[in-house]
């Protein structure tokens, strides 16, 4: 690969890693303002609570953003590792083998679960509560993948997040010693 292009590719991965850390930070912040687990009755009683429903909307968006950003970064990292990755399934298989993601099935269930709720348009507080409680339960799985992936990039391909702006918060949230 052309050295200048390679440098851009590395910088892009570094910026994706920073974006992953940023997503974790803001997802955690959104979830931190909610009392878990949610109950249908509580949601109905607070149906006009702008702060609560604003936080829930943010969780939805940031959960998806974190998983998508992590997916994009994993695909990019594979390219930099000169590993063949024609399909995203191959990317998932590669990182499953390394233990970065728990399993392909878990990853796909996470993705499908969050998309299912995005296509539900009715106000059914029991379903809303169940949806957000499930996303909240799935959060540690994504956090663990984020932590292991950042560690993998630092240790194996020598690329760290583009800045240290979110590094300490990221470690505090996901645990471990990722940069």
């Amino acid at each position, binding site marked *: 690969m052309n050295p200048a292009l390679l440098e851009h590719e590395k910088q892009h991965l570094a910026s994706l890693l920073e974006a992953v850390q940023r997503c974790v930070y803001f997802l955690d912040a959104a979830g931190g303002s909610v009392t878990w687990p949610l109950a249908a009755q509580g949601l109905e009683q607070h149906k006009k609570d702008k702060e609560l429903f604003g936080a829930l909307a943010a969780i939805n968006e940031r959960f998806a953003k974190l998983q998508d950003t992590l997916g994009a970064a994993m695909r990019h990292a594979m390219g930099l590792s000169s590993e063949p990755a024609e399909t995203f399934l191959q990317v998932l298989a590669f990182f499953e083998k390394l233990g970065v993601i728990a399993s392909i099935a878990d990853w796909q*269930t996470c993705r*499908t*679960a969050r998309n*299912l709720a995005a296509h*539900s*348009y*009715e106000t059914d507080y*029991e379903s809303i509560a*169940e949806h957000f409680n499930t996303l909240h339960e799935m959060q540690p799985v994504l956090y663990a993948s984020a932590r292991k992936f950042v560690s993998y990039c630092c240790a194996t391909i020598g690329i760290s997040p583009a800045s240290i702006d979110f590094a300490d918060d990221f470690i505090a949230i996901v645990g471990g010693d990722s940069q």
Partner: protein
Amino acid sequence: MRLTPDQVRIILATVDRQIGSDADVVLFGSRVNDDCRGGDIDLLIENSTLPGLRQRASIKLALESALQVSVDIVAKRKGVTPTPFQAIALMTGIPLRAPS
């Protein structure tokens, strides 16, 4: 309805595996109309406990993989008044399981 017996068997077996054989499964949407062509498979799954998000996601993934067609799932708890959308699905849909 536009589902083959094999497709019905796969749908019911998948729901049985994820939720249990007590769950009612209703096909609704364009697939109940014999004059249409193609289209997603819309299913309403009704159970004594509300089918969870993870269960629905697993069913959707398994069915889309087995049937190679997009599948949408609406979940409802038995005994709870249906939302207007669920009521439409129940009124216009076709139960896939023979009444016990």
